[in-house]
């Protein structure tokens, strides 16, 4: 009961204060490869996404100064992964700051406070501002500057496949094991039948509309002609 109340409170908080932000346009991002920019983790080790090829990667853009949403996201991902019990070498998570004013020290403090210390969890920054915005543009991640301390942002995780191609987004404040499992499954290229056909629903619907209109127009003419013919 207490747990349910906690979820409801988080949901209400999320909807009322932090559930805002501009959603990314997935039609522009899915299937593309983000730029191979340099990350530096909190230990000072530089790496690029190309170094992580061979395993699915989960990207989690956050900012260390966030008063709530980024904390809830990171903690829920940590909790969900513990529940899933997947081997650590099956994927990599990169939590990075989207705030150009934050550096390694802020992210190290964020990592320490929220115990994001799994072997496959990299907490990092993109030190070059141009490169940071190239990455944010590639993910179509847009944040709104409210004040020095507060930024509104979409709450999401991005799943890359083992070749570094964007395959899936999961949205929410409190991520569940099922969401992470789905994202990793899609990142491995294992789609359900619905996921395979869902992109075609709209063009098929438009074609259906056109075909129905054509049938009404020409079908009625044909029937009238038939009716005129002497029997």
């Amino acid at each position, binding site marked *: 009961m207490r747990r349910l109340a906690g979820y409801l409170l988080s949901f209400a908080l999320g909807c009322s204060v932090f559930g805002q932000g*501009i959603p990314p346009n997935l039609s522009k991002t899915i299937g593309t490869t983000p730029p191979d920019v340099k990350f530096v983790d909190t230990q000072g080790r530089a790496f690029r996404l190309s170094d992580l090829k061979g395993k699915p990667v989960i990207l989690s853009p956050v900012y260390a100064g966030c008063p709530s949403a980024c904390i809830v996201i990171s903690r829920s991902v940590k909790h969900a992964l513990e529940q899933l019990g997947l081997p650590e070498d099956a994927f990599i998570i990169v939590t990075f700051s989207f705030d150009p004013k934050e550096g390694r020290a802020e992210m190290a403090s964020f990592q320490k406070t929220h115990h994001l210390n799994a072997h496959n969890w990299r907490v990092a920054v993109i030190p070059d*501002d141009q490169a940071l915005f190239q990455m944010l543009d590639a993910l179509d991640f847009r*944040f*709104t*500057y409210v004040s020095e301390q507060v930024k509104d942002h979409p709450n999401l995780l991005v799943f890359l496949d083992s070749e570094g191609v964007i395959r899936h987004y999961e949205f929410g404040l409190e991520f569940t094991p099922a969401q992470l499992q789905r994202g990793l499954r899609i990142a491995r290229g294992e789609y359900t039948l619905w996921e395979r056909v869902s992109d075609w629903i709209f063009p098929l619907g438009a074609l259906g509309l056109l075909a129905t209109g054509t049938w009404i*127009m020409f079908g009625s003419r044909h029937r009238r002609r038939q009716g005129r013919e002497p029997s």
Partner: protein
Amino acid sequence: MDLFEKRAMALGLSLVMMFFGLVVYAAKGLQAELPTCLPNARLFQNGRVVEVGPNRYQVDAVAFMWSFDMGQGNTIRIPRGATVDFYVTSRDVMHGYHIDKTLVNLMAIPGAVTYTRVKFDRAGEYQIVCHEYCGLGHQNMAGKVIVE
């Protein structure tokens, strides 16, 4: 079916298809940004221009009877090649926010924030006009983006 009805239907279908084609062209060919209404966004009372990154700006614009407040009055200056996020709201009634020579075409709605992004690749002056009749001083509502 009556001949007139049939023609009206054919015309209607053709127009729907044409508009659909134009929407697809705008989205794919012109890479038009879809304006977004953010009904739950934090409202702001005053305009401002914030440099959020290298050549990245955020403009909070407040429309009111009968002008635009963008922090530096009704004119903003940005460098060429800047990418600008426009957040527009209204302090009183419904206004419009159109930037000439761009695809920016937003409504300024009291109690809500509308958003779009535009990249200014060419230097020059871009006129901002209210294109939603808002009252007696509507024709005075104007502003300017100066790209240097």
